[in-house]
């Protein structure tokens, strides 16, 4: 079955071609069918592959399609790798992807025909690239997907291209990703020059022999790539702006799948990271910092999508923390659960926006009675992300926190505090949106309504997943071998675990940790609920709050220290160096010749006497040269 893996990316690609080329002629329904159908196909295929992979005695499968680049020793073939990790991501991508496609058919229904098709074409293309990313059997193929998803996110953020703001957001996203990608590329070149190969199997087999410094370098460069793609400090600022795109896009790309590419990549190269402890520390620190920073900002945001965006960044921070402390399974686990509840949150938000045509939560409130399904699912998602047992978020987050505790208490403390913040801002959001009474205009209120089934059904499915998703990884303390995901992924991370075994926390200790995290979560929830359900804060924040509301002025900082100087320098080059120096010199030669001509021709005075005089002088000079200088 896994021989047919190429079908998985292929079918969305076909969908892309169909929708892209025939966008003028297809009806909306047909477009929708094609788009969802193709993704569904690949979901089914992935499922089949998944069952393959689950059979014991399964060996990692390399499906090589054709030679991409073969030069001398360097052999890069267009190959896919099927193993537990990739197949897991396949399921997440295609599954969540499919739901979001379905959702979009309703959400984007007001678009004109061909734009509608354009949207789905992009979406399919994205799924395709994402699949390439996770399937690639070497770093080059992975990079193809890596940049592919970047492109799609660019296209989708800028989907409403008439709006210049959106365009800028898209551009920002692309360029920041590019910065990361440069790091990724250089890492690849380093591998080529060091290992002479880019295939995972070869690189990982050669890695242990390489000096630690090299590995640290490579891994750090890769991590730079990850920070770009997965919105970590310092390259995270694009993600909140990326909310310019249609909400389903935010759900799919900027919550569920693309942004987790970085985690996938590092989990994939776990061996190299395990061999480079320095890098791990860096990752852990960056992860923790990002988690805290983003959460703190989320506390004061009033745009429903912005809140979710920052919470995404913060959650991603958690995942990196996990990677940093070597809890690869935990990271992947959180990716999965996060995919469920964050997608759900976004879709819920989308449904709200769809109904209220409004994104500012201060103008909402009391939606509970208007759109029950949305409300319930959203609530479940909030509970999940807040880490209330037995919802999925609890398990994954808890695993990460305990691992962090194991590594270094500080990580844990920060993590726990972030958990508190998370619970707080999520329920602030929930409360201001759904509780209380509606604060929008009357005619807004007039056509508030529950969204159509194409929207609610995905919500419900995702809600179920968000609730039960956690049981894929029940901590070992409850029952031996209950952590199914760990078992499942163990072949992938076997290498790292051989190198240094992650000794599990003592049972009682772990239970204590759980208690703490649950405690903080509940505190956050309760406080937020009580604070905002009746009287939400409607006036703009002040003092420290303002600092948070304005996102610590990071964007402004970047503007001041990078963008502006670069522009100024460019202007300087263009107007001063180019025109007044280089070109001036070039033309100067011409001018000099002209001038010299004008002067020298004055020798031709027209006077015979003058001529003869000059001739004689010339003769004398010849004599002097010949007789005096030569001797």
């Amino acid at each position: 079955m896994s021989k047919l893996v190429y079908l998985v990316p292929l079918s969305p690609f076909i969908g892309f071609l169909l929708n892209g080329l025939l966008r003028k002629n297809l009806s909306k329904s047909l477009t929708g069918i094609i788009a969802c159908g193709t993704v569904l196909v690949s979901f089914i295929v992935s499922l089949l592959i998944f069952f393959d992979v689950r059979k014991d005695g399964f060996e990692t499968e390399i499906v090589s399609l054709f030679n991409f680049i073969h030069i001398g020793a360097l052999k890069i073939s267009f190959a896919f790798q099927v193993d537990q990790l990739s197949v897991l991501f396949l399921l997440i991508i295609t599954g969540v992807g499919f739901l979001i496609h379905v959702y979009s058919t309703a959400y984007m229904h007001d678009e004109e025909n061909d734009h509608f098709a354009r949207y789905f074409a992009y979406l399919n293309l994205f799924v395709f690239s994402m699949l390439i990313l996770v399937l690639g059997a070497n770093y080059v193929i992975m990079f193809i997907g890596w940049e592919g998803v970047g492109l799609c996110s660019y296209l989708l953020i800028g989907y409403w291209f008439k709006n210049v703001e959106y365009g800028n957001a898209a551009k920002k996203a692309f360029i920041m990703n590019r910065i990361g990608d440069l790091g990724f590329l250089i890492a690849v070149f380093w591998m080529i020059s060091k290992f002479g190969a880019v295939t995972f199997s070869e690189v990982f087999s050669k890695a242990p022999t390489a000096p630690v410094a090299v590995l640290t370098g490579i891994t750090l460069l890769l991590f730079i790539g990850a920070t770009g793609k997965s919105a970590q400090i310092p390259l995270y600022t694009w993600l909140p702006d990326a909310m310019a795109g249609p909400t389903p896009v935010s759900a799919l790309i900027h919550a569920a799948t693309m942004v987790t590419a970085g985690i996938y990549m590092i989990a994939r190269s776990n061996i190299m990271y395990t061999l480079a402890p320095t890098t791990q520390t860096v990752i852990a620190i960056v992860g923790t910092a990002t988690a805290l920073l983003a959460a703190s900002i989320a506390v004061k945001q009033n745009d429903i999508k912005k809140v979710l965006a920052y919470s995404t960044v913060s959650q991603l921070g958690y995942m990196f923390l996990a990677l940093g402390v070597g809890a690869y399974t935990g990271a992947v686990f959180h990716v999965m659960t996060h995919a469920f509840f964050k997608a759900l949150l976004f879709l819920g938000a989308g449904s709200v926006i769809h109904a209220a045509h409004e994104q500012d939560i201060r103008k909402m409130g009391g939606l509970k009675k208007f759109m029950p399904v949305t409300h319930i699912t959203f609530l479940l998602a909030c509970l999940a992300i807040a880490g209330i047992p037995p919802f999925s978020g609890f398990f994954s987050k808890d695993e990460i926190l305990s691992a962090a505790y194991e590594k270094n208490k500080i990580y844990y403390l920060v993590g726990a505090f972030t958990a508190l913040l998370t619970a707080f801002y999520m329920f602030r959001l929930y409360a201001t949106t759904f509780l209380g009474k509606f604060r929008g205009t009357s005619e807004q209120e007039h056509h508030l309504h529950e969204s159509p089934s194409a929207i609610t059904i995905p919500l419900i499915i995702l809600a179920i997943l968000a609730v039960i998703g956690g049981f894929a990884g029940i901590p070992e303390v409850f029952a031996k071998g209950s952590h199914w995901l760990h078992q499942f992924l163990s072949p992938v991370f076997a290498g790292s675990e051989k190198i240094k075994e992650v000794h599990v926390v003592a049972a009682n200790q772990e239970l204590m940790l759980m208690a703490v995290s649950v405690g903080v979560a509940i505190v956050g929830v309760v406080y937020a609920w009580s604070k905002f359900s009746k009287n939400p804060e409607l006036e703009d924040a002040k003092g420290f709050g303002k600092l948070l509301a304005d996102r610590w002025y990071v964007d402004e900082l970047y503007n001041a220290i990078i963008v502006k100087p670069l522009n100024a320098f460019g202007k300087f080059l263009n107007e001063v160096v180019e025109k007044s120096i280089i070109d001036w010199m070039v033309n100067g030669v011409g001018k000099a010749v002209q001038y010299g001509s004008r002067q020298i021709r004055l020798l031709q005075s027209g006077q015979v006497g003058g001529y003869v005089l000059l001739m004689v002088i010339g003769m004398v000079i010849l004599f002097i040269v010949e007789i005096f200088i030569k001797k």
Partner: protein
Amino acid sequence: MSPTQILFWFLSVLAIFSAIMVVASKSPVHSVLWLIVVFFAISGHYILLNAQFIAIVNLIVYAGAIMVLFLFVIMLMNLNAETEPQKNKWLKIAGVIAGGALLMVFVAALKNADLKNQLAQVNQGEIGLISNLGMALFHDYVVPFEVSSVLFLSAMVGAVVIGKKE
């Protein structure tokens, strides 16, 4: 100091002095006359060197023919001192300096030439005599002699072309 030497020095001084006068004298006519003096002095030198033929030709052709031609032209244009207003003084000085510099350079070049034992044979040696020159001219140098006729022809034609009224 043999008479030859005295004669040599006399003629040399005469030649140089009158040459200077040629350049210096205001009126063209005077210049012509001084030039004729130069020619006579030089012919004297020729005789001293026992080159009678050249000496005679020099007198006949130059002093006789050419200078007369010059005189005619000058008379024809009745040029006199006034017709030549003062030329730019600086250019004059520059000219003199340049001429002097040329002389200096020549002298400088020649001073380290060892020509002490090289003597020019004076008042003896047969080669200057018409008979020998004639033999040489019409045996070895007949081709140049004939060729120079072309030159004359062209000069003649030229003079005609230029002079002819249209």
